[in-house]
């Protein structure tokens, strides 16, 4: 099964791996360590090489390391072809010694091997020294995002052969992206598209996977005018003008992968409507529309009160919420104190239930009976994880902390026509 293509732009690494693993009669190094950022082709290159050279190998993803039996049995299955029960490292080594041939080259590839650091020490050591313990020509390739210096435990590990997979350069990414786009258009057309696309997104992410996704998602709309016949392939300027707006909107969803093309279109249309009505709204409003649950009327007020309780210091409550408050003289000290205090940076503070209810009754316009309804709404807010309950003291004085951020609270406040900005101590 070699459905993998030859990896592009990885010639040097392929050369090194060939020299390590494919020289006939040579002994392979016991431990090879490949590292590089995600989407740099580490697994792809190694697997391609192993499959095209028909080296017997096993691939194991270390997220399954929570159970050692899975580890041993998967590797045994892939290397020997038989399903065998194996509980411990000892049995594993014995079975390998028995079933594998001394002269053949075997390779085990561990993906995300930084998880090895969370397991027992002896498992790490076993897989570093596998060829020594089994006396076979077996090599373990540990692939990871994090470099080797962070792997060193107290007992030394043998020095691995380290291969670095650097991130692709700009020209390499260009070449790779052009290859990904679907067939049907001229090479020049695709190159123009990518050349227009890259500068916008290259700041934010250089990860090939993300850029691929963005390129593919926007390609159809880029091609649309050419499909319709309105423009030819050569009218780069108009094509660019067409796609520019869409790409600019796309930048707010880079790395997030939240929407596929159709949903994206709907969202963009809805945002256009919103923008037409309210010019001042930030682009980020579109993100919150996706995630706001619909809350009942009192719950919205409760949420706002919780936000105010978390982010305003207690001593200022009197000033905000009580009608008769005296004048406050602004001394130099108080101005400086106010400047230093920025709760948005340090995070929400916990508050007792009494304070929440006091603020709640204050901001809600009509008179409300303190029925169990209110309390149950508080509990449901906790369930939705919009407020967190702190501590175990549920009998005397339960304490809470608000979990929503400012954008969310502002959105809810706008919904109920409450000016939250007036009640905040700091901006």
């Amino acid at each position, binding site marked *: 099964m070699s459905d993998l293509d030859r990896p592009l732009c990885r010639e040097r690494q392929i050369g*090194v791996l060939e*020299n*390590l693993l494919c*020289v006939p*009669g*040579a*002994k*392979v190094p*016991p431990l090879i360590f490949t*590292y*590089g*950022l995600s989407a*740099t082709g580490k697994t792809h290159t190694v697997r391609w090489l192993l499959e095209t050279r028909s080296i017997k190998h096993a691939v194991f993803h270390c997220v399954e390391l929570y159970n050692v039996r899975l580890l041993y049995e998967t590797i045994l299955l892939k290397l020997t072809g038989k399903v065998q029960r194996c509980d*411990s*490292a*000892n049995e594993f080594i*014995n079975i390998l010694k028995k079933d594998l041939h001394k002269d053949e080259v075997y390779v085990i590839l561990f993906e995300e091997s930084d998880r090895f650091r969370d397991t027992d020490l*002896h498992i790490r050591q*076993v897989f570093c*020294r596998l*060829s*020594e*313990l089994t006396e076979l020509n077996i090599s373990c390739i540990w692939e990871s995002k*994090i*470099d*080797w*210096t*962070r792997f060193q435990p107290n*007992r*030394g590990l*043998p*020095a*691995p*052969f*380290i291969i*670095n997979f*650097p*991130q692709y350069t*700009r020209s390499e990414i260009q070449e790779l992206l052009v290859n990904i786009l679907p067939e049907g258009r001229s090479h020049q057309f695709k190159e123009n598209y990518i050349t227009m696309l890259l500068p916008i997104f*290259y*700041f*934010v992410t*250089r990860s090939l996977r993300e850029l691929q996704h963005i390129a593919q998602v926007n390609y159809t709309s880029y091609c649309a005018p050419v499909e319709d016949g309105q423009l030819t392939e050569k009218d780069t300027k108009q094509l660019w003008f067409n796609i520019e707006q869409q790409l600019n909107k796309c*930048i*707010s969803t*880079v*790395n*997030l992968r939240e929407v596929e093309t159709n949903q994206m279109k709907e969202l963009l249309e809805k945002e256009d409507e919103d923008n037409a009505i309210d010019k001042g709204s930030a682009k*980020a409003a579109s*993100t919150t529309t996706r995630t706001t649950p619909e809350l009942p009327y009192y719950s919205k007020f409760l949420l706002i009160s919780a936000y105010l309780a978390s982010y305003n210091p207690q001593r200022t409550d009197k000033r905000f919420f009580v009608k008769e408050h005296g004048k406050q003289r602004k001394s130099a000290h108080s101005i400086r104190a106010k400047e230093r205090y920025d709760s*948005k*940076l*340090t*995070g*929400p503070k916990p508050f007792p239930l009494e304070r929440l209810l006091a603020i709640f009754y204050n901001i809600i316009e009509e008179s409300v009976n303190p029925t169990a309804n209110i309390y149950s709404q508080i509990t449901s807010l906790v369930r939705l994880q919009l407020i*967190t309950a*702190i501590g175990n003291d549920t009998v005397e004085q339960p304490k809470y902390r608000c*979990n929503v*951020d400012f*954008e969310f609270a502002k959105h809810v406040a706008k919904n109920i026509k409450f000016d939250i900005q007036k009640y905040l101590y700091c901006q």
Partner: protein
Amino acid sequence: ICLIHFYKRRMLKRRSPELDIREVLSKLSRRLAGNLDESFYGQEEKVSFLLDLLKRTVDKGESNSLLILGPHGSGKSALVRHVLAEASKSDQWLENVLLVRLNGFLQTDDKQALKEITRQLHLENVVGDKVFGSFADHLAFLLTSLKVGDKTSKPIIFILEEFDLFCSHRNQTLLYNLFDTAQSRAAPICVIGVSCQIDVTELLEKRVNSRFSHRHLHMMLLEKFDDYYNLLTRISKIDDDTDLAVTWNSHVDSVFKKKDIRDFFEKKIFTFDKTVSHMKHFLYLTLIRMVSNGQSELNLAVLESALADTHTSESADTIMATLTDLSILEICLLIAVKHISDIYENEPFNFEMVYHEYLKFKRRKYSPLPEERSVVLKCWENLQALEFISPKPGIRTTGQQLEYILHTSQLPDGVLKKAVEKYDNCPIEVAQWMSSSLHTCS
């Protein structure tokens, strides 16, 4: 005929070595790549001491125990392998001796150790399903079942690698019983422990310690550079009689006699790490380099480039390589982190503070950068995954919003600055921000 042969040889030597470097690699890799090689050079007295000890167990039926101690890479396991290979050249050995090899990494438990001993002595059938009262009974049973004919059992050699891990088993039963048997001469056994912990006898319990014969064999790293260099020359040669071996060996000899090569090894390799394993690793890297470049001659250039391959070159290099791979947004976040750490003197920070700092930079100096919180948060999580920023240890993180968890930076000083300088097409505003915090300018 002799003369023709003589001329042929001279012609071979005069021709520039047409070595197939891949062949050389495949022959030498056996010795250099792994740890299975059975050759061992130098330190003849230790070899003869160990050989003598083993012979006494086998021939005379003496029971002995010995500990081989030394730092990593000093050749303890290599010594054991070599001695066993030497000893097994005599036929008497192969017939009579039973070898049991245990490893502290594999047998993490005394029960497992016992099962492994049973397996290596091929006594599974004999033991069958018997249940034993204690470890001592079981071991005694195993030993008695090996009795041959006239009441003397076969000599067994136990080799315990990673001996210090056996000391952490419960009650040290395996060690106690083995040493007990060695001392009480119930059967002729020889117990050889190999460990990298020099004070491993401190880990032994009193009763075990008293049964141990306190024979030590200390393996040291090579002190003098001359010995090191001779060993280096020796292991770079192929032990064959083929033409390839002859050409290669003479080439190695001539290259290693040069002063600059010798200086290179003395200053760059020997001063850093005196172990033989490092030497082997380095030679292996050199050979791989030569195969990749397609050259078949050793010279200083290829040695230098192989040095750059070892992970012993500054660890900051690997971190810098990763830093130059990040995107601009992530670099900006790291610069913001650095400035905050400078201003607040290494107090832990959270995402909000970093984001605030980043926004200040973006709004004042460099607007093409995106502002969306969710995008920046994703980059933040990327940095966390790469372990450049990690949550402050010891604080509770459950129930806290992601943005407010306190983190600390894991980057060493100065690396970020070098990385920004090396970064391809770094926007100039970012580079300027690196060198001067926004707070200092107007």
